[in-house]
């Protein structure tokens, strides 16, 4: 079965005078035809513009209750979870600091060892000899910041 467009094309090719197209009145409620189907669909237009929504305070309250409950639940969950998460993050930080502390203590001990080696009397004597320094005689060293009774007496 030929479709309408195919049919109209066929008639124009035969040389017959083209019929003036008769435009049927379009049903405003008819939907576009489905191809190759004899099914025609119509929609029913309902005009609700004249309807006015009646306020429903119960539904509104329920809505707000739901929102409130959700917020409360969120707040509770947050208040429960945040410390735990913060604690975990702090734990990471604490462990990192502990490791750093231990490393610093180790480094301190290593530096103390280096200091002790540098201050060893053998090394100091070698350095002194290299610079032609000699040990002072007994009593040759006079300390200006005299310690002991004299200093205390001056303060008094």
């Amino acid at each position: 079965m030929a479709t309408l467009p195919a049919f109209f094309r066929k008639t124009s090719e035969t040389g017959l005078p083209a019929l003036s197209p008769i435009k049927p009145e379009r049903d405003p409620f008819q939907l576009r035809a489905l191809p190759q189907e004899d099914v025609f669909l119509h929609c029913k237009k309902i005009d609700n513009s004249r309807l006015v929504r009646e306020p429903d305070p119960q539904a509104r309250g329920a809505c707000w209750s739901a929102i409130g409950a959700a917020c409360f639940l969120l707040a509770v969950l947050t208040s429960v979870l945040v410390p735990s998460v913060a604690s975990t993050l702090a734990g990471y930080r604490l462990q990192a600091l502990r490791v750093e502390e231990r490393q610093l203590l180790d480094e301190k001990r290593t530096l103390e060892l280096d200091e002790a080696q540098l201050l060893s009397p053998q090394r100091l004597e070698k350095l002194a000899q290299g610079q032609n320094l000699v040990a002072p005689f007994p009593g040759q060293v006079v300390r200006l910041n005299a310690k002991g009774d004299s200093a205390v007496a001056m303060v008094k």
Partner: protein
Amino acid sequence: MVDRRLAWLAGIVLIWGAAIFLNIISLQIVHHQEYAKLATARQVVAVEIPAPRGTIFDRTGQPLAMSVPTESVSIDPLRAPDLGVASELLALVLHMDRTALYGKMKWAHDNHHGFLWVKRKIGYEEAQNLRNLRLEWIHIQDESQRHYPKGTLAAHVLGSVDFEEKGNAGIEQVLDAELRGQPGQARMLTDVKRRGIDSQSASDMKPGTPITLTIDERLQFVAEREIAAAVAAHQAQSGSVVVMNPYNGEVLALASYPTYDPNLPPQPGEDKASRQNHAISVPFEPGSVFKVITLSAALETTDLRPASMINCGRGAITLFGRTIHEAHHGYGTIPMAMVLAKSSNIGAIQIGMRVGQANMHQYVRKFGFGQKSGIPLPGESAGKVRKPALWSKASLPSMSMGQEISVTTLQLAQAAAVIANGGLLVKPRLVLKKGNQTVPMEQPVRVLKPETAITMRQMMEGVVLPGGTGTRARLEGYTSGGKTGSAQIYDPVARHYTHAYNGSFMGFAPLTNPAMVAVVTLNGTHGTAGFGGLAAAPVFHAVLTEALRVLDVPKDLPDQTPARTLVASDEESSDLAIADIGSGQPNILEDAEEDEEQPGQPAGPTVPNFRGMTMRAVLAEASAQGLTVLPDGSGVARVQYPPPGSTLRQGERVRVQFAR
């Protein structure tokens, strides 16, 4: 219809919820323990917190031994995929011999050992390189390593540790329990990447107790330097020095030579003597330094006094049917003070015979000989003092001059402290503090009357003054007292005394209020240059000069550098003493005491002749010439020392004995 559907939905949800609930019950209640264990095993790691070994400080707070963290590598040979590749890899990173390492790994693998130390105490870079490999069969463990930053300094005092940081010598061994500490344990919660989230201490870590010694590293260094130089100069076998505070027994320096580096483990073929503490572990016959004990006992138990005249038999004495000669030239009758200053063997024998066997033994024991001093060091020798029942007739005279008895350098220092502190025997202390707590000193025991100790000090001053045997020990700016000793070493195989000597010097300074005592011993010296007065006294001089300066001890003599003491002439060096029994046989009474009397360069006034003058005239004459006289007795001057015409040195006094 709708209700039916809702009922179905509700039923499904209920069943679903019930299934979840049941599963939760299964997880949380029924299988709780099991899953908790699994979770713990995966998430919680037991971490050992190493306890650092306590640091050892000297009395000024300088660290002498300390531990620093290091790492060690171990592997699980059973988990290594290919031993050949593994050994090659490890050998490359750790700079090891690949073949030897492969052999060890193969042996461990074949014997199903899941643990093998690869290398202990590795460097930081090596550890980082290994970490970067990220191989699960390689384990890097925290350890600590003992370091002795001053090298050989005080090695015999400090001792050393083994690979497990357990003390195996010295203070490290004796105080191992305190130094070691107690490692702690923590349980660390980790995430999937094994990063720590939280940790809880399961047991607290207790670090090792820091120990503060009485040793002063500056004095210790000087003592070690001087004894090493003296041993080399006199071709001695070994030597030791002890410097001690006579009042509280604090050992300020304790040096032994030959020495070793405690940082290095014992090497095969190493001289064992280098690890032996000669100051406390090697007893020797003291020789003439022991005359101090004889004379102290005499002052306490007889009526002998410094001015008491002792007949030295002009160099010979007949004893138990045998005639004993002094080696070179003898003395006639000289004051007891001169017996000590000249180190006369026959004089000491005469005095010892007056003291008697029982008193002699009693005082030898009272001075601490024949018993351990209790210093906290391993291997201390008590020396040897025989019971009186085992003494022969010759034992008393022998002991009077320091033979038939063996002592340690530390015991001599303890005895010298008795004289220096006014007659109290103090126990040597080596540990000043444990942590922050001061180690209390033991109550001293009175050995001598204070006046006896002061008299002994005065007599011992004569040893270092011109005419004495220990002039090289004399200090610039300080008065001092001491005693030399040169004992022949007995050869137990040949059963006679050899010509090798134990040269020693014990002394203290300043004289009136001694700040420290020091004993120097050189073992196995040869020839006259190895006698105590020539070999050991200069060491005493060098060590005490430095020690008095470092400890800021005020001078008690005017600032005048005395002229350098000259080496004695042959005649003067032959002051005394081989007691010859004439047979050429080994003789226990042989004493090689040939400590030299050494004249000083002329530096002061000449001593006038006081003989025959009254005390008033003597004092007037001395006052006119600016001399200090120590009169004794009454009547007219009979004996004086130094003799007339000799030259007095700075600080020297003239002793004059008066008699009617």
